[in-house]
C-alpha cells in the first residue's frame, strides 16, 4: 500500500545528514560540555557550533541563543520567565486567542499566580489585528506574545506591525516561531521581536530540542536553576546529540529554504485548489494567501475528523484533525472556534502538512482516496440528511 505522510506539523522526519552529524555524539564523543578536559572539549565545541548555526537561521547574535528541550519549553520559558523577571513593572500580559497550548496554559498558570491576562481575538482567517493588541496595552503591561504562524490553520500573523506598537510602548514582544523558523525566512531584527521560540522537529531536526532566542538586555528568569549551562539561563547537562542535530538542521534549512518553499507551495496550492473541486461543502481554514507554504487545512461539512482519519489511515495516509473527538480533552480546536467556526463545522477539520519528501503523486492520491471516504461518511450523517432535506448548510 502507498504510504503518504502529511502530518509534518506534528513532526518532520529526521534528515539523513542530520542523523549523520548526530551519530558521533551518541557514541565516542560522550563528554560533558562543562568538563574541563579533552572529553569535554569536543562536546562543548559542537554545542557552540550548533549555536552559531541556529543564530544564523534567525539572524541573531550567537550568545543570545538558549537551547531548550522543546518548543513547548521555549514557550513556557518565554512567557513565565519574561513575566516573572518584569513583575516589578506590572502584572499584565497580552496573548492572542490562537496561541499554542504551551503559551496559553503558561498564561493560565501565571493568572493563578496573580498575573492578569488579556486575549486578543482573531478574524475569520485566524489573523490578529495589531490595533487590537494596541487597544489592550495598559500601563502595567509587561509582555505581549503573538505567534508567528499558526500550526493548525497555517495563518501567518502580522508580527512586524505588532512589533512597531510594542516597541513604541517599550513592552517586550515574544513570538512563538515553532511553525515558521526553519520553514520560512525568520529574522529577529526584521521582525522586531524581543524573544522567539523554535523547535528542531519542525524542520527535519531531532525531537526533544528547541531554542529560545532572547534579545540581549531583555531580562528573563530561568525556569531551571542549577549549573551555569546556557549562560546560567537554563541549567542541566546539555542534550549534545540533539543540539548538534538542531544546528545541522538549521544550517540545511538556511541553505535550502527557497527551494523547499517553492516545492511546498506548489503542493499546497494543488491540494487547496483541487480538493474543493472534488468535494462539495468544503471550507478552507486559515488565511487564503498569508499561510505557511506546506500547509493546507479544511473543514469538511457534516462529518467528523476522527472517522476520516481512520479511513485515511487504512489507506496509508497520515493527516491530523482539530475535531473534538480527536482531542484527548474532547474539545474542538480553540483555534478553529476563535476563528468563528461553529462546533459542528470544526468537527470536520482536516489538516494536511506537506514536507520536503512530499510529491505531486501524494496530492493526487489524496484527491483519489478522500472523496469516497467523505461520501461514505456523509451517507450516514444525520446532519447531511437534514441538509439535503432543508437545502442549507450547517454554517
Amino acid at each position: 500500500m502507498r504510504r503518504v505522510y502529511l502530518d509534518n506539523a506534528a513532526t518532520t522526519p529526521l534528515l539523513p545528514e542530520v542523523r549523520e552529524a548526530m551519530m558521533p555524539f551518541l557514541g565516542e564523543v560522550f563528554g560533558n560540555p562543562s568538563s574541563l578536559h579533552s572529553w569535554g572539549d569536543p562536546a562543548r565545541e559542537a554545542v557552540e557550533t550548533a549555536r552559531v548555526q541556529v543564530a544564523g537561521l534567525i539572524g541573531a547574535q550567537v550568545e543570545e541563543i538558549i537551547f531548550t528541550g522543546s518548543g513547548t519549553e521555549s514557550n513556557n520559558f518565554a512567557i513565565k520567565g519574561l513575566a516573572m523577571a518584569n513583575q516589578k513593572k506590572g502584572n499584565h500580559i497580552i496573548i492572542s486567542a490562537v496561541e499554542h497550548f504551551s503559551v496559553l496554559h503558561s498564561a493560565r498558570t501565571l493568572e493563578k499566580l496573580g498575573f492578569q491576562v488579556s486575549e486578543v481575538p482573531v478574524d475569520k482567517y485566524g489573523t490578529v489585528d495589531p490595533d487590537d493588541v494596541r487597544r489592550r496595552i495598559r500601563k502595567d503591561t509587561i509582555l505581549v506574545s503573538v505567534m508567528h504562524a499558526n500550526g493548525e490553520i497555517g495563518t501567518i500573523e502580522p508580527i512586524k506591525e505588532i512589533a512597531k506598537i510594542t516597541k513604541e510602548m517599550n513592552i517586550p514582544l515574544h513570538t512563538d516561531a515553532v511553525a515558521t523558523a526553519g520553514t520560512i525566512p525568520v529574522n529577529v531584527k526584521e521582525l522586531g521581536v524581543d524573544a522567539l521560540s523554535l523547535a528542531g522537529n519542525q524542520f527535519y531536526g531531532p525531537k526533544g530540542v528547541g531554542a529560545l532566542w532572547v534579545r540581549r538586555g531583555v531580562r528573563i528568569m530561568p525556569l531551571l536553576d542549577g549549573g551555569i549551562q546556557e549562560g546560567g539561563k537554563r541549567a542541566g547537562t546539555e542534550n549534545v546529540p540533539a543540539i548538534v542535530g538542531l544546528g545541522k538542521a538549521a544550517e540545511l534549512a538556511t541553505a535550502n529554504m527557497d527551494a523547499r518553499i517553492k516545492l511546498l507551495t506548489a503542493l499546497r496550492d494543488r491540494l487547496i485548489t483541487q480538493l474543493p473541486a472534488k468535494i462539495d461543502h468544503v471550507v478552507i481554514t486559515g488565511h487564503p494567501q498569508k499561510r505557511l507554504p506546506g500547509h493546507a487545512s479544511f473543514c469538511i461539512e457534516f462529518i467528523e475528523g476522527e472517522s476520516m482519519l481512520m479511513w485515511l489511515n487504512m489507506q496509508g495516509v497520515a493527516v491530523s484533525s482539530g475535531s473534538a473527538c480527536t482531542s484527548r480533552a474532547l474539545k474542538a480546536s480553540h483555534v478553529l472556534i476563535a476563528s468563528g467556526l461553529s462546533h459542528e463545522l470544526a468537527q470536520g477539520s482536516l489538516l494536511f502538512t506537506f514536507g520536503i519528501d512530499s510529491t505531486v503523486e501524494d496530492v493526487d492520491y489524496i484527491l483519489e482516496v478522500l472523496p469516497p471516504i467523505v461520501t461514505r461518511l456523509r451517507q450516514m450523517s444525520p446532519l447531511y440528511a437534514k441538509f439535503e432535506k432543508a437545502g442549507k448548510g450547517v454554517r
Partner: protein
Amino acid sequence: MPVYSQKVMDHFMNPRNVGEIENPDGIGEEGNPVCGDMMTFYIKVKDNRLEDVKFQTFGCGAAIAVSSMVSEMAKGRTLEEALKITPQSVANELEGLPKNKFHCSNLGAQALHKAIEDYLEKQKKGVQA
C-alpha cells in the same frame, strides 16, 4: 488513532443498519454534550417488537461502531428488552472502548431509548384520541 478493538473496527468499517426508515414508528435524536456529535435512531415496531432499527451518526469512529452495535442488539427484541440495553452492555459487546470514548456509548443507548419513548408516547396519544 485510539486503540480500538477488532469488533469496533469491524462495525466502523461495515456499519449495519445505516439509514432512515420511512414513516418510522419512533425517532430518537441524541446530541453528545461532550463533543457536539449527534445520533438519530429510527424504529419500526410490530407486536411490541423492534421489527426494524436504523440509524444515522455524526461522530467519531467509536460513535459509528456504537450505533451500529446498538442497532444490531435491538433489532428483533421486545421494547422491554431493548430498553435494557445500556452503555456498558454496548461497550461489552464491542469488546471494550477506550476510556475517553466510553461516553460515545451513552449516545447510542440514549438515542435508541428516546426512539422507543417517542413510540410509546405516540401510542398513548393515539389511544386517548
